[in-house]
């Protein structure tokens, strides 16, 4: 594949990426419902990784900036985020996503039961999309799905803001307090889940 410098890094593959992303999002939207037919998530967001951040990440990871590498090495050119009300709903969504016939779980990591050292909690999955893309432009395609509760999502948004700040005064204190917030939010998520179960059984 040719060097992709000034042109779009996804070159001619972009329409295909968008089609797969929309199909996955539609599929998850249909699947992620409980027995009563209510959706299991609060919102579902998706995006194609921007040209700029794909290039930046390739360089940072030491890969050549090519369309092929952007699709194969990064594995998050397609990104979806599923945000749920309760922790149990997150796991139920994970289970349902695994039933989609044309995807294979390439990798998954449960940062909810094993939080990152800074307090980050989420469930991460990288899906390999096996549909009729093989042999075409750039397949196989990968999609990263992040699943979490609203509380975890709020925390991640704040942590994201901090990540892009340079030379912060009191950095250590802020990081420490952010970690405490992650613990408080996790405590709240667990208590709400417990109460939900109790209310269900009333």
């Amino acid at each position: 594949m040719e060097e992709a410098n000034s042109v779009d890094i996804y070159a001619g593959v972009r329409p295909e990426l968008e089609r797969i992303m929309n199909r996955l999002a539609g599929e998850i939207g249909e699947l992620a419902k409980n027995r009563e037919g209510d959706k299991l998530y609060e919102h579902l967001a998706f995006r194609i990784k921007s040209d700029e951040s794909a290039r930046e990440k390739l360089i940072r990871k030491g890969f050549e900036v090519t369309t092929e590498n952007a699709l194969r090495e990064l594995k998050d050119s397609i990104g979806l985020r599923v945000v749920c009300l309760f922790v149990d709903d997150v796991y139920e969504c994970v289970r349902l996503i695994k039933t989609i016939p044309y995807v294979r779980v390439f990798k998954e990591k449960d940062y909810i039961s094993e939080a990152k050292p800074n307090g980050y909690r989420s469930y991460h999955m990288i899906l390999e999309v096996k549909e009729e893309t093989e042999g075409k432009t750039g397949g196989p395609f990968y999609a990263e799905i992040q699943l979490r509760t609203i509380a975890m999502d709020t925390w991640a948004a704040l942590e994201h803001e901090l990540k892009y700040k340079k030379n912060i005064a009191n950095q250590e204190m802020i990081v420490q307090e952010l970690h405490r917030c992650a613990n408080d939010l996790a405590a709240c998520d667990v208590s709400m889940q417990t109460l939900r179960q109790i209310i269900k059984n009333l």
Partner: protein
Amino acid sequence: MKVLFAEDEKDLQEVVSEFLRFKGYHVTAVDNGAEALEKAKSDAFDAMVFDVMMPVMDGITAMKKIRETGDTTPAIFLTAKSEVEDRIEGLDAGADDYLTKPFSMEELSARLRALYRRKRDYTVRKVSYGNLELDMEQSELKAVNTISLANREMKLLQCLIGSAGEVMSAAALLQEVWPGENTNADACELYISFLRGKLKSVQANVVIEGDRTGGYLLKEI
């Protein structure tokens, strides 16, 4: 600073209580060891001052019984007799210090301050069991993950860890965690449920077994 003061001589009880209140202490005065034992069970104090010779139940017996409940509140004995045996018995019963009558009230106050300083330094800040670490200062529970605990969850877990391997009745837990509060086993059961969720969330190798009728048991799995 809350002081539990047991003294059967009314005049002395009043004078000392008045003096300590003047010094800024919150004083709960009782007439004998049995009352002191009741108060110590139902309320939390920062220090206790007991006379030895009292009707109904003497100070040494009350002290022994209070220590048996796991209560480590600093205690001072007031002893009329200056016999060595009396002091030894008092200290062995679990007292931290003694004063012989007649005593200077300023000295009593100074000894209470000294005990309080020491208690602050020695207060348990971290408790551990299995792969659990309970940080009382940060209200944080840690195993593989960390999570915050509410004040009651923390006290409850501390009690369960304190008697790990032994069944604790809901009534005993209510007395420890909700002292003097008009509540019932439902509250205890709810907080046990919260704790179970949190133990699971941090991936503890410790579980709470049992229910409100048979009591609760904390153990490693």
